[in-house]
């Protein structure tokens, strides 16, 4: 299981990386915005994408839309972990095909639940 973590704040990337490691996911890579993440996703074989929304350059929602529009990446599970909390944003992400949405500040438990739920669905 190879996971890409995209967030413009390195501390948040480390926190997510540590939480994922506790859940048994040790193969992670990091990117600091959508425009650096997208080429990584295209050139490698990631199984899961965890992304923030608000980032300089390419935002998380733009990344999500680009992933869904890409023939090779379109079925990649995407979890959004973000401080963006407007209802219309959550609806937009859902319509764009997000697999899960976690609002910051979040608990380790919340992240774990969402990830497990996503994999249950992907496996089903």
């Amino acid at each position, binding site marked *: 299981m190879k996971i890409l973590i995209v967030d413009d704040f390195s*501390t948040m990337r*480390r926190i997510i990386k540590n939480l994922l490691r506790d859940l048994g996911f040790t193969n992670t890579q990091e990117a600091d915005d959508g425009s650096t993440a997208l080429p990584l996703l295209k050139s490698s074989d990631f199984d899961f994408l965890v992304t923030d929304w608000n980032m300089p350059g390419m935002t998380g929602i733009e990344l999500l839309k680009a992933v869904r529009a890409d023939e090779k990446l379109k079925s990649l599970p995407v979890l959004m972990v973000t401080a*963006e909390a*407007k209802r*219309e944003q*959550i609806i937009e992400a859902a319509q764009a095909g997000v697999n899960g949405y*976690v*609002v*910051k500040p979040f608990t380790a438990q919340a992240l774990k639940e969402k990830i497990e739920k996503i994999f249950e669905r992907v496996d089903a």
Partner: protein
Amino acid sequence: MTKDAHHESLVSYAKQLVAELESGESHNAMQTIANLHNKRDHMLFQEVGRLTRSLHESIKNFAIDTGNSRVQEEMSRMEDASQRLSFVIEKTEYAAHTTLDKVESIMPVSSLLGDNARTIKAEWDKLMRREMTADEFRKLSKQVDTFLTMAAKDTQVIESNLSDILMAQDFQDITGQVIKRVIQLVKEVEESLVAMVAMAGAVDRITGIRHEDLPDLEQKANHGCEAEGPIISPEKREDVVSGQDDVDALLSSLGF
């Protein structure tokens, strides 16, 4: 000169002007009109000057003083609010990374201690059930001895890391002070700006200047689904969720 004094001198010029016009001294009357004009300009300049000075003062007063001379030195190099706020980002980022470093170095130590304790406990239970051979007992004794030595050493490592984590929280004091200063400056600038806007309104009224309507800002604000960042007071807003439960409810109402 105070506002009242200005007002009085305007009144006296006006009275003088009426008197001069009535008595046909048109040359003097023109001079009085020019005086009135100068008086008005002078009042405006004075008021604008006063506001500019107070704005300048509030920017100049925006200097930090903390007891720590090293910090003071560091601070004296930072002359504007955005630099100060960048300093807050740096400080908090450094603290977060230090904390994460320490946590990451504690975790394997603590989990190894746990693993070893569980292994020994299993053996110990065997001993308690009198299911242990003499050889196994000798092995267990060695294990216990090694474990106790290791536990004594590792808990020291853990304590020292925890103490570092504790100390890494010292950013709060410094960043709190910096942010308070920035808040104070923002307040002062806002007050000065409000006063300047009022002043500009007064200038418009006196001079009779009319402005074309400004483009509708509301329309721009409502455009699209822009990222907004953390919501500070979700309880005051209808259009935001207040936590993960709200997100889950919204998503499940959308068929997730």
